[in-house]
């Protein structure tokens, strides 16, 4: 059911918000094996739902998101609600303040079902590094849902949340959206407030929606996109993307860079080619462009992300909040034990990498060069956008792997990100949506990159793509077949 249908149903009193919330809570309970939630918040959900029912009864004007049940990734600060970042380090951390996006959604009347499972501190591409166990892919529970916002994508795909807010540092919204057959939008860096997002890599992190459809993603984005005086890097404006989705496709130029397709699985390449051909027949213009240095962008991304992460995570010492070890006598020993017990292997690996990249004598070689490459990436994309309006490419070179594969070879996991990190590095908006199914019955994702602060065009093209790909029908056939 789309957000619009739900909204109209609530307004017409076809069902009450409380009934609706209960249904979603039940569905979340039924799909518990997915491990999509770290913890549920039924009281919060029912409280909010009760308030919305009263507002409906009183005939008050409602936001399109009022009464819609949703999930927040567990790295968004929620006052009085446990926020763990899927880490033992913050196992008992209850924030005293709300993230700006959560404040906004509360004022819209959002119904919070619970906090989404994820890779620990958003570091990972498979949602397997969570201290609360891996998330499973609703299409096939032996497979990963992708990460790091795996809980959000799995919940939305399984109908255990109408939409979810995730965070995307190097593909963490788009990759799980692709693996789970849903829509994931990473807004332009600075379009949505980061205040209250527990930072992984501050210059790359961006909060974005995971939704059932392009329209749902647009509705959520329109609500959360707004400048925030508490986030100096956020200077977005109120958006009206949902209203422009049906703008004609004719004349839109779609850029295709062969570099993005190197190493992509045949099925993915084929599905994207078919989709693009369909769009061309509906009036889009296909343009070949060049995006060099993808491999270098991936390296630069990991250097910058790890460097910022090392600094952002240095504050977790277990003294004022979070996990405090019982071992160790001196303050230094206590902090060391708290951190070594509190953080998982992947987090430790990235902290070490990051501190190394920033250390004196290596700064220029690593961090300095990475920043230069980031500047270069911005120029490369800016040039590309001179001859096209959006760029089409795979979200990930492969479909969802079986659980356990990423953990064996961390560097392989890093390579899954090669198509998603450029958008973070260059600060561009990007969207992943399903465009077909593999023979194994797993979703195939197509990714769109847009100009900075031009989510409107991005969502418009994605909406047309959704009409062509007809993924909902495929999905129906699969579930009928089962």
């Amino acid at each position: 059911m789309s957000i619009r249908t739900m909204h109209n149903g609530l307004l017409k009193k076809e069902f009450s918000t409380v009934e609706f919330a209960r249904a979603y809570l039940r569905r979340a309970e039924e799909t518990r094996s997915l491990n999509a939630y770290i913890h549920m918040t039924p009281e919060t959900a029912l409280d909010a739902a009760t308030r919305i029912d009263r507002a409906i009864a009183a005939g008050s004007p409602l936001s399109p998101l009022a009464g819609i049940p949703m999930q927040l990734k567990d790295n968004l600060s929620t006052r009085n609600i446990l926020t763990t970042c899927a880490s033992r380090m913050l196992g008992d951390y209850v924030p005293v303040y709300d993230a700006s996006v959560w404040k906004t959604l509360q004022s819209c009347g959002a119904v919070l079902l619970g906090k989404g499972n994820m890779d620990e501190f958003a570091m990972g591409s498979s949602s397997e590094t969570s201290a609360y166990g891996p998330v499973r892919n609703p299409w096939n529970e032996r497979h990963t849902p992708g990460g790091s916002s795996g809980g959000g994508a799995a919940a939305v795909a399984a109908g255990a949340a109408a939409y979810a807010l995730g965070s995307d540092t190097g593909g963490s919204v788009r990759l799980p959206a692709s693996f789970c057959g849903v829509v994931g939008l990473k807004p332009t860096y600075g379009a949505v407030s980061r205040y209250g997002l527990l930072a992984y890599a501050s210059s790359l992190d961006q909060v974005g929606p995971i939704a059932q459809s392009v329209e749902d993603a647009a509705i959520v984005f329109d609500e959360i996109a707004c400048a925030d005086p508490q986030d100096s890097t956020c200077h977005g404006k109120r958006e009206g993307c949902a209203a422009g989705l049906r703008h004609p496709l004719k004349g839109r130029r779609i850029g295709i860079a062969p570099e993005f397709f190197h190493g992509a699985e045949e099925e993915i390449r084929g599905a994207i080619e078919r989709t693009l051909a369909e769009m061309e027949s509906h009036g889009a213009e296909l343009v070949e462009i060049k995006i060099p240095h993808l491999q270098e962008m991936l390296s630069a991304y990991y250097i910058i992300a790890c460097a910022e992460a090392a600094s952002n995570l240095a504050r977790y010492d277990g003294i004022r909040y979070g996990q405090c070890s019982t071992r160790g006598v001196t303050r230094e020993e206590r902090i060391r034990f708290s951190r070594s017990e509190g953080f998982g292997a992947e987090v430790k690996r990235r902290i070490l990498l990051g501190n190394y990249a920033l250390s004196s004598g290596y700064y220029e070689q690593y961090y300095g060069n990475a920043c230069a490459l980031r500047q270069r990436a911005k120029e490369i994309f800016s040039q590309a956008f001179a001859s096209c309006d959006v760029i089409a490419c795979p979200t990930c070179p492969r479909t969802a792997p079986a659980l356990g594969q990423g953990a064996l070879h961390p560097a392989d996991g890093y390579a899954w990100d090669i198509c998603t990190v450029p958008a973070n590095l260059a600060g561009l908006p990007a969207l992943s949506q399903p465009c077909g199914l593999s023979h194994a019955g797993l979703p195939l994702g197509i990714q769109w990159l847009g100009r900075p602060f031009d989510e409107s065009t991005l969502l418009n093209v994605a909406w047309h793509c959704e009409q062509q790909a007809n993924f909902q029908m495929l999905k129906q056939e699969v579930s009928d077949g089962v």
Partner: protein
Amino acid sequence: MEYELVIGLETHVELSTATKMFCGCEVTFAAAPNTRCCPVCLGLPGALPTLNQQAVASAVTAGLALHCQINPVSVMERKNYIYPDLAKAYQISQHRHPLCRGGYVTLRSGKRIHLQQLHMEEDAGKLVYEPGRVYIDYNRGGIPLIEIVSLPELSSAEEACEYLETLQRLMRYLGISDCKMQEGSLRCDVNLSVRPVGCAQLGMRTEIKNMNSFSYMRKAIAYEAQRQIALLRSGFAVEQETRRYDVPSGTTRVMRSKENAQDYRYFPEPDLLPVSLPGQWVNALRADLPELPDARAARYEALGVSPAIAQELVRFRAVADYFDAAIRCGASPVFAAKMLIGPYFEAKTGEQEREAFSPCVYPEQLAQVCKKLDTHALSPAQAKAMLGQALRGECTLSQALAGLPEHPPEQGVLEELCRKALRDHGDAVQSYLSGKEKAFQVLVGAVLRAAQGKADPQAVRTLLKQMVDERSFDKNKP
């Protein structure tokens, strides 16, 4: 072999802004622990800093007054180190692209001490030690600081103290910091090395951290210089290290050796945009700069005031402002300076007392006395004695002048002055009527000023009380 000292200072000045550097928390001294904190200055997960524009304006003002080059774009960076009083495990500071470069401080001898840079940063919290326990107070965490780094051009403890005093006076003049060493709003690290006289090469330096008084700084420099010279004379080398001054023993002790030096892993703070200063805005701050102490002292000397007295006058801005007001009222500069520095400062000997300058005589009154001196209606000794009493608040000036042929204003004139004061200060009347006794003093002061000190304060008080009670002044309202 004779040795000479080479000293450079890193001075931290706490800016007296209304709120902290990166959040809206109030800046106050000595509030109850951890009552001036929020998610931002406590470094809670997910909280983000936003730059306080008032702090930037203060820092630029300091840079302008120190003749620095103001960089149109500067960058906040993270200085990463772990200490319990540092909530985020990094301090937001500036490193590669500071707010200001260059600039200088001129000593009395005319010697210029050049500055390397001036940058903005945030203060850390404070550890409070109790037997067996350590507490953390984050009230100070996030208070804006500027750090002024001098080149190693100071060559004695005296010069170092004079340099620091000059900075202190300047910051107070600019009204951007109270610069109280005892409260920590002015702190200083000393970089010191010694070298044979005439040698061009710098010796190995040590850094003495956190000097919080002029006298300790003087002693620490003397001790450290003698320690280094003794080492060199006996054939040892000076080690590069960080030391601290130990007050009871009067010596410096090692805090950190070079091998344990911190690697701060600076990198640009991704949560803040680069600090861009529009040229017009900087020019407006430049135009707003007050007349600075050196320029002021020079002006006073040109008016005939002796250099020593001119220096005294400009030490505190309030004194100099008062002096200027008296001159504007027609006081002769030479007499006014003598009257002010003599009688007043003789009574107020403490530094803090002098700084909290609050004479009981209006500049107009001082001007009147000076005029009497000019016309020989008073002898300098008489004037000095009377002013002394009045400035110190022992009696009013008119009482002090009572012995002189001075006619108080006619009753009718005085009544008119009282009525005018009541009309002009309606708010004071209201506060007084609502029980604020102090507000009444505003009215008395206004009348005394208008009567140019000739009215008897007691008579004024009685008259005003009577008028307020009867609200008789209302009848004359148009």
